[in-house]
């Protein structure tokens, strides 16, 4: 410890200061691109949460009475299995409903506290094998009168649209972010190249007196890594603030009232952002060092 590590750190900080403008530019690019990545992820999470019931072609959900008898439940199950119009059905227990409820109302603890699993209805989620809306609604309605069935709820057209649009939006954001991330890597590459050029005399001496290649490399790679991490931290802050603002804004809009991104999902996104930023920085710097140092 001491000498070696101290040297690397000192050199890194000195370089960052020397190339303030370039460093700032690459940091900002990392920040913008990673904000987009983060936003895309949060959008994905939000849509996931609000449309959880309706993913994978689920068209309607048969809610059962809380006190349904096993015989009644088995009868409905048999009927679903036997129907040629049903491609797939899935039973959702009270415990699973409660897990879903906890996600949807994660930010409203008083709801979660006042609800327990046994007041929530279990259900069957049904994926029909046909696309005809009339047939689907006829199929769903058949179950409405069955003993033990509380209600049948159909996916709304808006939910389907939301799923489709969000998918496209996410792809577009990811594409833009990928381009920006590439630009960020190039900018970091250029910053490091400048730093290497500014220090070529020192590097020459270091090689002559027998410094190892890694000893010469590490400060530059550390510099790239720090730039990436700093950009990523800014991105994380932006994403966090935007998420809070957006959530407040849409809280009372119908359809979006289940559109929440819980804190654990924000943290996951943040961690991903930091890892991506660090990786971009280290890779950009690593390429620059290998290319221009010829160590």
């Amino acid at each position, binding site marked *: 410890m*001491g*000498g070696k590590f101290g040297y690397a750190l000192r050199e890194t900080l000195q370089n960052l200061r020397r190339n303030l403008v370039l460093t700032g530019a690459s940091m900002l690019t990392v920040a913008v691109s990673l904000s987009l990545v983060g936003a895309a992820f949060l959008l994905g999470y939000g849509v996931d949460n609000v449309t959880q019931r309706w993913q994978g072609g689920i068209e309607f959900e048969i809610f059962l009475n809380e006190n349904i008898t096993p015989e009644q439940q088995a009868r409905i199950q048999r009927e679903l299995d036997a129907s040629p119009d049903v491609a797939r059905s899935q039973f959702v227990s009270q415990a699973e409903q409660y897990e879903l409820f906890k996600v949807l109302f994660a930010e409203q603890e008083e709801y979660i506290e006042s609800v327990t699993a046994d007041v929530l209805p279990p259900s069957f989620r049904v994926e029909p094998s046909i696309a005809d809306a009339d047939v689907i609604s006829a199929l769903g309605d058949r179950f409405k009168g069955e003993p033990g069935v509380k209600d049948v709820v159909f996916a709304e057209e808006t939910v389907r649209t939301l799923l489709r649009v969000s998918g496209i939006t996410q792809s577009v954001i990811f594409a833009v972010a990928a381009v920006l991330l590439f630009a960020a890597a190039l900018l970091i590459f250029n910053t490091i190249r400048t730093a290497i050029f500014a220090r070529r*005399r020192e590097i020459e001496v270091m090689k002559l*007196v*027998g*410094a190892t290649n890694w000893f010469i490399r590490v400060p530059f790679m550390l510099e790239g890594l720090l730039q990436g991490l700093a950009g990523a931290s800014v991105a994380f802050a932006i994403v966090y603030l935007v998420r809070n603002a957006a959530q407040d804004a849409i809280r009372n809009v119908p359809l979006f009232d289940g559109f929440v991104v819980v804190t654990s999902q924000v943290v996951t996104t943040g961690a991903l952002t930091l890892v991506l930023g660090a990786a971009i920085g280290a890779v950009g710097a690593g390429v620059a060092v290998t290319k221009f140092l010829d160590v």
Partner: protein
Amino acid sequence: MIKLDNVSKFYKSDVVALRGASVDIRKGEFVFLVGPSGSGKSTFIRLLNKEEVPDEGRIWVAGKDIAQLSPWKVPFLRRNIGCIFQDFKLLPTRTVYENVAFALEVIGRPRHVIQSQVPAILELVGLGKKFKNLPHELSGGEQQRVSIARAFVNRPLILLADEPTGNLDPTTSVGIMRLLDRINRTGTTVVMATHDRSIVDTMRRRVVELDRGTIVRDQTRGVYA
């Protein structure tokens, strides 16, 4: 200590820098490489610390065949070889002390070693009082002393000197040569490329003369020509 066996080096395939050179230098020897500009003296020196790789022949340094040396081991070879140059290669923004300490820092020597060895070596080269100065505040001779201190602070087995007096006046050169002689007497093998006739004639050490890449003379206790 150093052995070249039929070594050749070509630049751009037709420019000959060194052709069929075979030399055997024992531990503790002091060898002058003489010859006109472009005769291959610098190439000879650069081959020894693997800044250049020979196109033909084999080179042993400190008992190792350096052609077989994997790239990651080259730094460790160089820790056994001190280098000084005509243009000193000092870092202009660092003080005398820092320039010398730098050579120890970058090979990972602990701080207490640096703190004891740097002042000692600066004392040895006669710069004990100028350790806080920047290189541009020193005369040429003093700058060369700093670079010698940097090359020797790690007590290398071999000291390579490429025209170390090329930028210095005769009186200053004599001082530098005294210092190199002193270092040689500690057992360090010194190989020095030069075309300073009076130095070679005064010192009367082994002389290897190169002409257009070929060794034309190898004489113990020789003179310039």
